[in-house]
């Protein structure tokens, strides 16, 4: 078995100032297998992947490719022997076109290349995946889901023997993920190996040939298909930590918290992102918003939090018209926001975790003494939040950008919920969170609801929506196309509504 392994990872260790990201990791990848890496947020999955592609240099340990030791001094070296990767955070140039982004990833393009020839070639790949993308659009104009596909295409156009995918499905719809899995299975059948990371158990169960669990920078076990089930993997990953329990109260539908009347929002291209959208949100209610990403959810969240202006219609908070107030005054009206794009609008990347945690209420008396910051109080607040949300924050004074994707998300949630908001607008709040953390976020939302917080929960995860919501509305092309009761509806019914084929 060992002689035939495509890649052997032996006793890898990688530290960053003040953090041991990988302690001792060993695992092997066979040719023609889909190998899944599972682990909590901050366990070191992305770090390990970056070591495999030559982006990070390990402190210790060996990599054997095809049985012979390899040392990467740059990603170029790993590309040359046939290791390609889709990174957790996009490696795209927003200002460049789709074509330019993909072309740079292509192998063996002559310095003076024929534009027409490669356009045809790349277009064929897009067609093969039924992607409706214009090669000449700049990437910044595309939805996050489409950007994820471009990353995938960048990997698939290369002839790689090992494909590494770091949470590729986090921003894909279930249908898109299914399409990706078909591709991955086909590649596996051609003898290629895939190293896959996901927090979604359903996917892990579906696609993996083997699963390796990573915990606190160490590889725990590798299990072949058949020797694991969801519970086994979850308990290996989380260990003795208990998954928090909660009971959801039924919403009483008494006091109106927020009302949206015929709201329309136009985007940069002048098209309607929201089209005569109306809904009501009651105190303590959790309103689920289902829909394929890019059907106006982001605009809804942005207009509610004051980041975008409505072109017509009204928003009433407790009867008060807040339609075109700025972010600040709508915050005063008590709306919290968990944005979709964490890195650019959720955090200040270079500032510390402590500072990011008080960003919303830095001016509060609790964190200042006269005109000076009260560092002790800020620190105390941070330790409490880090503890409460189990954030792996690294050493004190660590800039937040060093944190793993899931941990950044936890910081945002901790900050947004700290002020006991009356309304929470959450876009994909558990995207990229490990199962333990996702459960914890659910509990926090439910606890909030118990205390009267109303939540607009925008999500693509139907399980999450069905579990938490009092009511689910479905969005399609900026309109509300249906409203269903989670107790009586089915996944199929919501799926049909999401596709825009029926209305209710």
């Amino acid at each position, binding site marked *: 078995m060992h002689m035939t392994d495509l890649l052997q990872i032996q006793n890898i260790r990688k530290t960053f100032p003040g953090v041991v990201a990988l302690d001792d990791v060993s695992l092997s990848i066979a040719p023609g297998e889909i190998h899944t890496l599972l682990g909590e947020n901050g366990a070191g999955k992305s770090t390990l992947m970056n070591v495999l592609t030559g982006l990070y240099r390990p402190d210790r340990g060996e990599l054997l490719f095809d049985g012979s030791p390899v040392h990467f001094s740059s990603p170029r070296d790993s590309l040359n022997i046939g290791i390609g990767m889709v990174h957790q955070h996009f490696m795209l140039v*927003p200002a460049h076109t789709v074509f330019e982004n993909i072309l740079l990833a292509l192998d063996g393009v002559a310095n003076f290349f024929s534009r027409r020839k490669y356009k045809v070639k790349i277009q064929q790949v897009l067609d093969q995946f039924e992607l409706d993308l214009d090669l000449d659009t700049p990437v*910044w104009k595309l939805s996050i889901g489409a950007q994820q596909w471009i990353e995938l295409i960048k990997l698939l156009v290369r002839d790689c023997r090992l494909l590494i995918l770091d949470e590729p499905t986090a921003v894909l719809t279930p249908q898109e993920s299914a399409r990706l899995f078909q591709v991955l299975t086909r590649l596996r059948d051609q003898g290629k190996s895939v190293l896959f990371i996901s927090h979604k158990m359903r996917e892990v169960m579906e696609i993996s040939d083997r699963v390796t669990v990573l915990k606190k920078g160490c590889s725990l076990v590798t299990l072949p298909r058949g020797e694991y089930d969801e519970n086994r993997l979850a308990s290996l990953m989380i260990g003795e930590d208990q998954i928090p329990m909660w009971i959801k109260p039924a919403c009483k539908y008494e006091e109106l918290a927020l009302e949206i009347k015929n709201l329309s929002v136009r985007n940069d291209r002048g098209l309607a992102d929201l089209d005569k959208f109306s809904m009501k949100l009651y105190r303590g209610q959790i309103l689920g918003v289902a829909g394929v990403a890019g059907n106006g959810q982001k605009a809804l969240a942005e207009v509610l939090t004051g980041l975008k202006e409505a072109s017509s219609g009204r928003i009433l908070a407790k009867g008060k018209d807040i339609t075109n107030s700025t972010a600040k005054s709508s915050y005063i009206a008590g709306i919290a926001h968990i944005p979709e794009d964490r890195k650019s609008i959720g955090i200040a990347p270079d500032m510390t975790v402590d500072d990011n945690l008080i960003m919303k209420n830095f001016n509060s008396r609790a964190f200042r003494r006269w005109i000076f910051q009260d560092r002790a109080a800020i620190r105390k607040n941070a330790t409490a939040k880090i503890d409460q949300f189990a954030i792996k924050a690294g050493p004190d004074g660590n800039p937040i950008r060093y944190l793993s994707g899931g941990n950044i998300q936890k910081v945002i949630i901790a900050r947004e919920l700290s002020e006991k908001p009356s309304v929470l607008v959450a876009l994909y709040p558990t995207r990229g969170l490990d199962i333990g953390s996702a459960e914890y976020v659910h509990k926090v939302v439910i606890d909030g609801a118990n205390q009267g917080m109303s939540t607009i929960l925008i999500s693509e995860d139907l399980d999450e929506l069905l579990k938490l919501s009092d009511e689910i509305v479905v969005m399609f092309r900026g309109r509300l196309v249906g409203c269903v009761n989670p107790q009586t509806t089915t996944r199929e019914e919501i799926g049909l509504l999401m596709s825009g084929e029926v209305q209710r």
Partner: protein
Amino acid sequence: MFEILLDATVRAGTPILFATLGAIINERAGIINLGIEGLMLIGALAGFAATQASGSLLLGVLAAFVAAMLAGSIHGFITVQLRGNQIVSGLALTMFGIGITALFGRSMVGLTIAGFERVAIPGLSKLPVIGKPFFNQDLLIYFSFLLVVVISLFFYRPRWGLALRTVGENPAAADTCGVPVILARFMAVTIGSGIVGIGGAYLSLATTPMWIENMTAGRGWIAVALVIFASWSSYRALAGAYLFGGITAMQLRFQAMGTTVSVHILQMMPYFFTILVLVISTIRLQKGASQQPENLGQPYDREDRK
């Protein structure tokens, strides 16, 4: 009359055009270079000294390119390899350039050379209005036309150009595609600096074929500013440089006509108008999507998380 003004415009704009083109190459790779003024001076002195010694203008231009390239490689090494602060390093380079040229230029003051002469391009120079100003000029000016086109083609045609732009926008993306980011940035800084040096040499080999201490008189700073006006495009750099050149030509004309307005005020005009245009164009720029390379000014460290 108009022809003469246009001719003076091109001649006054050319040194700034070279400098702006060089700065654009730097910034496209993500490196801010505030050493342009110093690099121009180094180019001017090196070009003059080499021509003075050898009698060859071509050698002079080459010397200017190489000297400025070497000086620029200091900035490159500090900002690319050592990931130092680009602003500080660039300012230091300007001060270094001013100082060192004042020191070594002392023995050159008062010497003369035969500068670049006009070479009419057959046919084209006979065109009405634009014929003389654009096609009855010296070789360096023709070279600057060529450079504008070549640089623009380089950015948008070959794969290397795409790689260079990607390095300035998102070095991590370039790195993961196998582009040698550090090398690309260093090359952009050194070659760009060399081109800036030719801009300086134009002053000492063509505009006024002699060496005068601090003869760039702030043109390098105008070039730094024009990069933004040009939104990192070489064609717009041409427009910006000629705008400056045009106002210079006009104020010289006013001086020659003997107005009562103070010479100092007149000499201020090109700078004043360039800044005015910059302010207006920057306001416009902020409204639309900015062309600025996203990682401009940011050092690249592979193991750092962005």
